[in-house]
């Protein structure tokens, strides 16, 4: 924000200097150019004839899909139960694996050893932030397991549960079990990341108080850290369960059990009335999941 002096000696307020305006304009120009470049590729890869025909096709599908085949519901209860189990058991398994990872990834709980400050400063900041933990007095401690825990977190959360399911089906065969394992692996990174951030934010005062009583390492964790992160933990668990309900509804598309299996079967046979019923069921499941999770989180926080 600047004030500009006018020829007649008065001042006017302007939001940006000329240089800032130019930089902003140039930034937008670059952005638009990048967008146009990318769009050209997508446009080339598209058969526009189909796109112009799309409203008719959409109307056609809608007409075929209504009304939903309500009698098909009898065959859906089993898959719904499976879907619920994939989400719930997957979340529980994920939490068991995420807790140790989170404790190893949090700067204040990961095992560390003292390190020469001068040598630590040689590393660029990106690497230093991962390898070392800076203590309050400007010294550095080296942690060997923290980078591994961070790698587990980033690897499990960058890969979608559908891809995990594809992989697990190749390894342990199609079915509900592959879905549970896929959901649990995918959830480790998410839960561990949120949990380790919660651990890093705890108050050190309580931990020191427990340590002052002569508590051991495990006792310090149980009495000093766990009570502080328990609300965050419960919130994360319910939050992830809600997301997993959504994800487990589509795992069946690749053969990992649940209602997605029926969806994929109905799509392949072009049974649109069944597809619309399944989509309705999924919608209801997602809304219920979100409602439960909001209620529980409201009760905790």
């Amino acid at each position, binding site marked *: 924000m600047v004030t500009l002096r006018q020829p007649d000696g008065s001042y006017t307020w302007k939001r940006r200097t000329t240089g800032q305006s130019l930089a902003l304009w140039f930034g937008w120009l670059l*952005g638009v150019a*990048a*967008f146009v470049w*990318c*769009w050209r*590729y*997508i*446009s080339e*890869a*598209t*058969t526009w004839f*189909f*796109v112009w025909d*799309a409203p008719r*096709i*959409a109307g056609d*599908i809608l007409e075929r899909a209504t009304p939903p085949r309500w009698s098909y519901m009898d065959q859906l209860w089993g898959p719904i*139960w*499976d879907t619920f*189990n994939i989400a*719930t*058991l997957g979340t*529980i398994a994920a939490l068991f694996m995420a807790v140790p990872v989170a404790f190893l990834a949090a700067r204040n709980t990961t095992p560390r050893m003292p390190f020469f400050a001068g040598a630590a400063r040689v590393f660029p900041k*990106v690497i230093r932030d991962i390898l070392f933990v800076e203590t309050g007095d400007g010294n550095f401690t080296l942690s060997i397991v923290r980078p591994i825990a961070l790698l587990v977190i*980033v*690897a499990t959360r*960058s*890969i*979608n549960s*559908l*891809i995990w399911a*594809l*992989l697990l089906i*190749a*390894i*342990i*065969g199609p*079915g*509900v*079990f592959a879905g*549970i394992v896929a959901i649990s692996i995918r959830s480790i990174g998410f839960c561990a990341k949120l949990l380790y951030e919660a651990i890093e934010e705890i108050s050190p005062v309580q931990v020191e108080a427990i340590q002052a009583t002569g508590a051991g390492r495990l006792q310090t964790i149980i*009495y000093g850290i766990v009570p502080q992160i*328990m609300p965050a933990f*419960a919130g994360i668990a319910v939050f992830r369960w809600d997301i997993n309900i*959504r*994800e487990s*509804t*589509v795992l069946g*598309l*690749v053969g990992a059990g649940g209602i997605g299996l029926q*969806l994929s079967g109905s*799509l392949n046979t072009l049974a649109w009335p069944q597809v619309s019923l399944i*989509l309705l069921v*999924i*919608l209801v499941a*997602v*809304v219920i999941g979100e409602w439960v999770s909001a209620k529980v989180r409201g009760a905790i926080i």
Partner: protein
Amino acid sequence: MSDEALHAEPSELDLLIGTSWKKPHFIQRPWLRWGLLIGGLVYLVLAISSVEVNWMRVYEGLDRGAAFIKAFMEPNFVKRAGDIEEGMIESIYMTVTSSAVGILISIPIGLGAARNIAPLPVYLVCRAIISISRALQEIIVAILLVAIFGFGPLAGFLTLSFATIGFLSKLLAEDIESMDRVQAEAVKATGASWWQWIVYSVLPQVKPRLIGLSMYRIDINFRESAILGLVGAGGIGATLNTAFDRYEYDTAAAILIIIIVIVMGLEYLSGIVRAKVQ
């Protein structure tokens, strides 16, 4: 109930030696605590017994699991380099275009879904759009759009744009609803028009968060673009699926490693951008 326990008359022995401290329970009400515990155990037994696991098949699969881990150690970027490059470029193009369009559309919808700015009819319409977008899984939207628009990255682009709108508008609307009223009133008091009011008082307040969330969404869009190919909506997913089908684990591992590296890079970049704007 717990009050009674706390204020119960201590016995003679307690007075002599003092009562020892007990860790308070996470859930205070005993009936709720025991109900949840027993209900949870019953559910676990029922659920686990309903999961059929073919342990023979799992055992046989362990070899393939080992093969995959081995492939991860020595990924093959070269064998299908052409396919990988093509799929990756498509994924990146889809991410860029859908993020740009999604963010642009989600700003007006976010403004419309904030109760302190929008009139009730606009509010309801915008909230309805957000709910629909959030309730539908990306992959399901992609299936429907592929059926309507045909195979190719256009269906993926539309899917990701639609999903971006639901995600970003909701968080933007929440941010606008919790903004500082004083600045808004000050700008209004200068006689600013509605448009000026939005540009000079509302948007500057939510801009840091909007930029941060947009960066996060770009990251999500890239990750999602990796699976849309499974249903024919373009991107690296198709290449990945083919690699799995051919049991070419080394190529699959190479693709997964590229995805992880790009996601890490995006996360690092968004960290820098967020630190800058805040």
